[in-house]
């Protein structure tokens, strides 16, 4: 395998794995951090596809700006866990 292929598989796996964590995790702050990992891994994949501009913008806009706002709100509201499913107490 070439270096590009190895890097692609590593970061594609990281993107998919952390995307699964985003939807599977009950703790919203963990989900947010996992989403940051997803976005950064995607940016590496963009870079491997030969478009460094989109790769960098992906980090600047999504990981750098939007996710900071997400985290800001999560921290401000001190959300610890998601409400139990099925309308529990």
């Amino acid at each position, binding site marked *: 395998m070439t*270096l590009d292929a190895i890097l692609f598989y590593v970061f594609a796996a990281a993107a998919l794995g952390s995307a699964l964590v985003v939807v599977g995790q009950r703790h919203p*702050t963990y989900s947010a*951090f996992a989403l*940051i990992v997803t976005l*950064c891994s995607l940016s590496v994949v963009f870079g491997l596809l030969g478009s*460094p*501009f989109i790769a*960098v*913008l992906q*980090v*600047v806009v999504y*990981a*750098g*700006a939007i996710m*900071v*706002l997400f*985290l*800001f709100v999560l*921290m*401000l509201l001190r959300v610890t866990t998601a409400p139990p499913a099925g309308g529990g107490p």
Partner: protein
Amino acid sequence: MTPVQQELLIAAVKVFVFFNLFLALFSLMTYVERRLLAFMQFRLGPNRVGPFGLLQPVADGIKLFFKEEVMPEGANKWAFMAAPALAIVTAFLAIAVVPYGPTVHLFGRDIPLQIADLDVGVLFLFAISSLGVYGIVMAGWAANNKYTLLGGLRSSAQMFSYELSLGMSWVGAIILAGSFRISDIVASQAGWFIPNWNFFRQAPGFLVYLVAATAEVNRTPFDLPEAETELVAGFHTEYSSMRFALLQMAEYVNMMTVAAVGASLFFGGWLAPVPALQHVFGRDIGLLWFLLKMGAGLFFFIWLRGTVPRFRYDQLMNFGWKVLLPVATLNILATAAWIAFIK
């Protein structure tokens, strides 16, 4: 070795050298900062360990190694451990795209003194600086302490507000050079320092950069995230031992990056102020010029810390959004108009 392997080896050696150079500079900075601050306040500062106290960073390192690692009860374990690592990684990523000197000729090859000369170098810096906030936010949130949380919140709001101005202050320099590549921006400032350096041609942009960069690295007068009079020590209140050292290291490395980037974008990087001084005894001394400019930037940070008091939080926000951002925008408009209509 195949050419690809050779390139990889050269890149690895460069990473190793610059990484350790910055680590050494960090330990030197902890000493120089305390010593200079002390002189500014008519004290002596650390002068006991070694000649002039020069071994003080070693003593501090040994002390921190043997301190107990304390993790507060109710802290989020993984986030608490990951935060300093995240902070240090983002701090060190940014040093990869800065050009430190001219191309050197070693072992029959031309080696540029820059780890990666990216086409999108300036944007890469912007991306890394926007990621830098996560280490601090995570550290503040994970410790489960109201002071650290307040420090983390403050720093995310502050870095978010000033990051925009920081990025906008570079745009004038980018327009003038016509490239995102940092080595091109350095090359566009060749010649006599007046009027060729961006410090002169982009004076409003430079002032915005100066303020926004100070806020971005959380230095006085923008050190609200760790305001010791209100928040104990802000986001790193609960950290001890080597994790505390890592957070400190991230802060200093960020400061050095900001000084290095400022030197490259606004002070001509490794170019001498007067072309005749670029070569001494037939050798290019670009690296020395670069270190000199970076050192001047670092001295300025220490000087600032010894001089000005801290901003109030509402003043900080008002200044960032109502003064800095409009000035940066007007600077971009003026530069673009100059390029479009006059030049």
